[in-house]
């Protein structure tokens, strides 16, 4: 793969930053519904980046991936999640997350910075690749982990997991655009299966506990 046009590099950076900002917005989102919508938007940015990468790097098969991602991550997954939210009584989930929203964002900023330093120290330097994109994508993954850890309801945790996958998608666009599209598509297929299983277990949880909060999940210890 040849040198990357500078326009593409900055486009990739902008996309990665947008995804990271969406991730921060998810941390703060008071409503589960808006969190799912933010996820859909985030996925849309990833889809655009995928198509852009396909065009610039000359991997036309990435268009297939972009189309499938659009269908799955922007339409089907959010629709499934929103349907789940419509069907169950969301109840009192709007309490602030552990430690309050502000400190959550501080923690998220700290882990993002940590990610930048880790990548610098590993010496990921290549003229052909936008390494800034990689740092931002790593930050997306780390902040998504913060989301999963600090929000105490099954929907936020599931959305956190799905957005980790978005972060990894950006990483793969940034540094592994040549990864066979068969592999990428099977990753996507696995995501779909995971979404269905997450949904089933969330329903089972709601049926048993009568809530989407994970606070009732404290039987198994030690």
């Amino acid at each position, binding site marked *: 793969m040849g040198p990357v046009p500078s326009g593409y590099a900055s486009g990739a950076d902008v996309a990665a930053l947008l995804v990271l900002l969406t991730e921060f917005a998810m941390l703060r989102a008071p409503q589960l519904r808006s969190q799912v919508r933010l996820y859909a938007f985030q996925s849309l940015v990833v889809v655009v980046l995928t198509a852009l990468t396909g065009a610039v790097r000359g991997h036309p098969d990435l268009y297939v991936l972009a189309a499938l991602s659009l269908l799955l991550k922007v339409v089907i997954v959010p629709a499934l999640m929103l349907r789940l939210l419509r069907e169950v009584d969301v109840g009192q989930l709007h309490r602030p997350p552990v430690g309050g929203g502000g400190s959550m964002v501080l923690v998220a900023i700290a882990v993002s910075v940590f990610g930048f330093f880790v990548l610098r120290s*590993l010496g990921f330097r290549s003229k052909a690749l936008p390494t800034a994109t990689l740092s931002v994508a790593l930050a997306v*993954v780390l902040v998504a982990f913060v989301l999963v850890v600090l929000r105490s309801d099954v929907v936020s945790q599931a959305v956190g997991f799905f957005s980790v996958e978005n972060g990894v998608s950006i990483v793969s666009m940034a540094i592994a655009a040549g990864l066979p599209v068969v*592999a990428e598509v099977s*990753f996507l297929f696995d995501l779909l299966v995971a979404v269905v299983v997450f949904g089933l*277990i969330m329903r089972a949880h709601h049926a048993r506990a009568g809530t989407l909060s994970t606070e009732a999940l404290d039987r198994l210890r030690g």
Partner: protein
Amino acid sequence: MHEVLIALFVVPLAAAVLSYIAPAKAAPPVSAVAGTASFGLCLALVPAASAGAQHALGAFLRLDALSEVFLLATTFLYATTAVFASGYLHISHLAAGRRYGQLFWGGFNLFCAAMVAAPLMNGLAALWVAVEVTTVVSALLVVIDGTDEATEASWKYVLIASLGLSLALFATVVVYYAGSSFFAGSYNLSYANLLSGAAHFSPGAVRLAFVLAVLGYGTKMGLFPVHTWLPDAHSEAPSPVSALLSGALLAISFYAILRYFQVTEKTVGPAFPRAVMAGFGVASLLLAALYLLSQRDMKRLFAYSSVEHMGIIAIGTSFGAPVAIFGALLHVLAHGAAKGTAFFGAGSVARKFGTKDMGVVRGGALLLPWSGTMLVAVVLALSAFPPFGIFRSEFLVVEGGLSSGRDALAAVLVVLVTVAFFGLSWFTTKTMLSAPAASGERAGADEVPAPGEVSIWIVVAMVAGLAALVLLGVHLPSDLTRLLRDAAGQILPGGAK
């Protein structure tokens, strides 16, 4: 040999479909036959695997000595667990109706199919897909009984394991990047590509990929500190699922780590991956040994014992001496047979007494003359008593540690294994070898059940497991010795081509 390889891939898949659509009564025998057939096919592949890498279906499937070791462990458990489950499910199965049986047996075979597929996949990307499939299918099997505890356990399991696997996906992408400048353009992550090119990969990227892979697949393998879902899922799942999760799935996750280990060793030398394995291994062993001292739930006890044994395997790999790696791979086989059998016994106790609380169950070996006695034997096997296979494998691991000058680590291993032995044997022998509680003596306990086995199939499965353990301990067949030696050779520097 290609036909055998393809058959091994297809048989469990076919069994999954068949057991879902077949009448309820046909599903258990179909699964048992499919499991036994898979094990037979796997045995037939042992000589070919020693001879070198075999490919089938264009290079989609691939078999070598290393993957064959893990296939042996998995298919053995597939066969014995199918037999065990036929006896175990008998009662609740009929009460819960046809739907339960369909879901259980369909899921059971699909879970096994994914676990058989993982070592057969040619490349790190396909391997990841197979492991992710094992996660989602087994999470559904954990929740199938629908109790509060099972729901909690399966949520923790699917969330934590999926997050772990997303790190493993990250690792896959980074490995691809590490090789992209060497291969100059698009390539696939097949083992042939990776092993031939690894020496020229970018070292920083490979280091990052290895750490991510150990964290990611280590989540599924139950390494500290990412083991937290394991005791919950393994204890709350139906016992046949617990046996597969502990005996086979942990090993498959270790297999994935070993594939990264091979690449990393070629790129940055053996010191770095060995240090990482040693760190995670000691931490896991320490945590498990301490937690084993305070468990009341029998299946939870065995779950922590799995964390302990994964720690031993990780440490064995980190020693780097051929004999230690041979021991670690033998440990994979022996632990699979032992842990499967232990969960069969725990399932038998749970069915008999209606609880797995070791503070309540008394007189297990008297009331369950066969499965209770064998449960005590397998606990001794798990504590590395001769003449069982784990004695031999742990002995080899320690020997390897001493011979490679890692005396301190070998000593720590021996001490912690001894602590684990106390925890494991104290509670189980108290439960199994005590006198039965007199009727009405204890509030909360049900009527003391009459002596007798729950099902003959449970006994059959346990006999098979113990027989395998004795075979591994007393006399390793020469084909198996050659296979393990070849597999260990692949993990040593300059081994795999």
